[in-house]
C-alpha cells in the first residue's frame, strides 16, 4: 500500500485568523515552531492528537485543515 500524501491549509488558516504567526500557533498547540514549519511544508504528518489540537485552535473541523492529496493516475 502506497503512503498517503497529506496536505494542509494551515498557512491560509493562519492568515485568516488575524495573521497568526507560526510561533503563536506553535505555542497554542504546545509544539516547536520548527514542527509547525515542517507540517506546513508537508514534511511531517502530525499525530491525530496534534492534528485535532491544530483544528481546535482555528475553531474548524479537522477536514478543513488536513486533506488527502490524490495522485492523478
Amino acid at each position, binding site marked *: 500500500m502506497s503512503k498517503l500524501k497529506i496536505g494542509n491549509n494551515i498557512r491560509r488558516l493562519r492568515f485568516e485568523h488575524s495573521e497568526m504567526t507560526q510561533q503563536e500557533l506553535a505555542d497554542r498547540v*504546545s*509544539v*516547536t515552531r*520548527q514542527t509547525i514549519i515542517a507540517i506546513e511544508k508537508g*514534511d511531517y504528518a502530525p499525530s491525530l492528537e*496534534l492534528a485535532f489540537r491544530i483544528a481546535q485552535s482555528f475553531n474548524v473541523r479537522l477536514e478543513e485543515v488536513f486533506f488527502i492529496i490524490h495522485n492523478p493516475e
Partner: protein
Amino acid sequence: MSYQERQSLVSLISSILINTLYAAYMAGRYPQADPYSPEVFHFWGSFFLILIPVTIVAKIVSYILFSILNAIATREAEPPITDERDRLIELKSTRSSLYIFSLGFVVAMAALVFSLPPAAMFIILLCSGLVAEMFSDISQFFFYRRGV
C-alpha cells in the same frame, strides 16, 4: 538551518573529536605485552570505563558552548520544549544507531571466532560505537532537514 540541525552537526563533530583525541591519548599507554596477557585486558577495561565519563562531561561542555555561541551568533533561543516530532526523530535515529552497533558487535565476536587478537575485538567494538553515534547524529540531521 534550524537549531536542531545545528545541534546534530555539533554533536557529530564533538563525537568524532572526543573519540579521536581520547583514542590518540590512550594509544600511547597501550601495554607492550603479550596480546593475551592480563595487562592488555586491564587496559581495554579501563579504556572503556574512562571513556564513558569523559564522553558525558565533554558532551555536556560542548552542548553548553554550543548554546552560548548559538545564542550570540543567531539570537535564537533554545526551543523550550521537546515535542512529538523531536521524540519521533530521536527514536528513529536511536533505532538506526542500535542496528549499526549490533552489526559491529557481531563483527567483533566474529573476530574472536577467526582467532584475531582480543585487541581487534575491542577496536571493532569501539569503532562500531563511534560509527553508531555518528550515524545517529547524521540521521537526526537528515530527518530534521528532509522530514520524517
